[in-house]
């Protein structure tokens, strides 16, 4: 069998070996409940508090701020948005987000819209950068929260957080940042950027799945959405996932310590990957920003062909990659992210999302750049589309409506 190579780290990351080792004792030896008063419980409580500090350090949080452990980034985003909205309803009912947020933001805000909250999705430019002028203009006296991601997991674009933070600060509106895709990849500091709430995912830091965190600046109150025994400062109930939390803590520490090293390694691989593909394949284009992008992200679209088909061919060659094609999404809708960058549906179809990881090698990049062009060629030979026969010819006209 051919070597399996993962270029799809935004979907899942192998735990760091050191992290997994650190978790092991908490499964069968130190399995106490941090809520118990006896020694075993207190050992667990200490381990959880240590992890809290490790996570706080990664994002430059203060001891007075809170790190709430959750079951993952999706829950953190829900707690941030639902929790903040419900708790601060008196102050206003308007939430600002960007068009390129993750579904756990977009769908949560849609849900809040049904509960009487208003929202504005700030547009992005062709590179996926939030239009900060539009952001400023979107602010009303009803605005209670701004939620903008640090970086986009799909196209890799890094937002101008400093500027966004200033806008939020001068309007005195708390800023929530989804830092799932960026944490550990590029530096982030909540106090530098005026961030009041911040979402983290453990697995994206090479920690275990099933754990996440929400940073809450001192003074920021959210309504709890999961009630019970009052764990996590009473904000998130449920017996603590101690091994998971310990793992996330160490993952955060490693991510902080080794971030520059990982970033420069991955940036090198990423640039070779992008350059290699663009040089070898015609009518291939980089999605996202050319320079303001995550060190591990390459998103490239290929005209006239569809991403799932490319993906499947690549998997026969051992490469695991993702596509922004509608064909692989549950809703069969094209990527909302690419759409909002003004990329046509047809072009969005042919987008490959390549997210590299620490364990990827130069040899893997080189092999990918060899393997990809014949696949693109094969699929283009099969496609009715070409420069002379663009997709747009068939839109509306030839399509049957089955739904």
């Amino acid at each position, binding site marked *: 069998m051919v070597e399996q190579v993962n270029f799809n780290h935004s979907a899942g990351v192998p735990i760091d070996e050191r992290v997994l080792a650190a978790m092991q004792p908490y499964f069968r030896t130190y399995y106490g409940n941090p809520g118990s008063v006896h020694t075993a419980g207190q050992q667990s409580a200490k381990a959880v508090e240590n992890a809290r500090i490790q996570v706080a350090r990664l994002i430059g949080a203060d001891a007075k701020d809170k790190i709430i452990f959750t079951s993952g980034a999706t829950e953190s985003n829900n707690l941030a948005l639902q929790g903040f909205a419900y708790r601060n309803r008196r102050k206003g009912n308007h939430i600002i987000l960007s068009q390129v947020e993750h579904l756990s933001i977009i769908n949560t805000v849609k849900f809040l819209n049904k509960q009487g909250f208003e929202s504005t999705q700030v547009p992005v430019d062709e590179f996926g950068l939030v239009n900060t002028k539009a952001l400023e203009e979107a602010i009303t006296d009803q605005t209670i929260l701004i939620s903008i991601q640090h970086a986009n997991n799909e196209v890799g674009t890094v937002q101008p957080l400093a500027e966004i933070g200033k806008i939020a600060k001068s309007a005195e509106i708390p800023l929530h940042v989804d830092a799932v895709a960026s944490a550990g990849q590029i530096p982030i500091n909540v106090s530098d950027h005026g961030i009041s709430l911040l979402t983290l995912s453990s697995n994206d830091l090479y920690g275990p799945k099933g754990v996440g965190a929400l940073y809450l600046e001192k003074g920021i109150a959210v309504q709890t959405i999961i009630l019970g025994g009052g764990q996590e400062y009473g904000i998130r109930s449920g017996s603590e996932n101690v091994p998971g939390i310990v793992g996330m803590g160490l993952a955060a520490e490693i991510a902080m310590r080794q971030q520059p090293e990982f970033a420069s390694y991955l940036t090198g691989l990423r640039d070779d990957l992008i350059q290699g593909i663009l040089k070898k394949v015609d009518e291939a284009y980089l999605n996202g920003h050319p320079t303001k992008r995550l060190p591990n992200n390459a998103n490239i679209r290929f005209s006239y062909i569809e991403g799932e088909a490319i993906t499947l061919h690549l998997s026969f060659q051992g490469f695991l990659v993702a596509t922004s094609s509608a064909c692989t999404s549950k809703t069969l809708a094209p990527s909302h992210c690419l759409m909002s960058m003004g990329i046509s*549906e047809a072009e969005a179809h042919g987008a490959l999302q390549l997210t590299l990881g620490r364990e990827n090698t130069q040899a893997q990049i080189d092999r990918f750049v060899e393997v990809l062009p014949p696949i693109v060629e094969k699929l283009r*030979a099969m496609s*009715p589309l070409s420069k002379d026969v663009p997709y747009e010819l068939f839109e509306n006209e030839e399509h*049957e409506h089955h739904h």
Partner: protein
Amino acid sequence: MYSEKVVEHFTNPRNMGEMEDADAVGKVGNPTCGDLIWIYIKVKDDIITDVKFKTFGCAAAIATSSMVTELTKGKTLKEAYQITRNDVADNLQGLPPIKMHCSNLAADGLHKAIEDYLRKTGRTIEDLK
């Protein structure tokens, strides 16, 4: 997720490519997920003597295109017109549920091609009865 048969047709699609001298062509697409399938046919004495496809779409779209051409060749127009989406899916050992209505368009393409041929020869489907 995909059956072996789907993977096999996806990897080695039958009757792929344009047909320069096609007697008729059927072009279909799915606006939801964006697939496009073109089916070209060559007809002699109301029998489909050759068939080809061009497809823009996912593995399921490609495999169903390939399969429908296999099912079609040598059939009469009337027989071919009776090939359904389910026939195509069944012959591929099934399709993932989500793909059943989105990428399973090849039979439609074939039907359109036959309709195109009938139109060109001044007939309707009823005339095949």
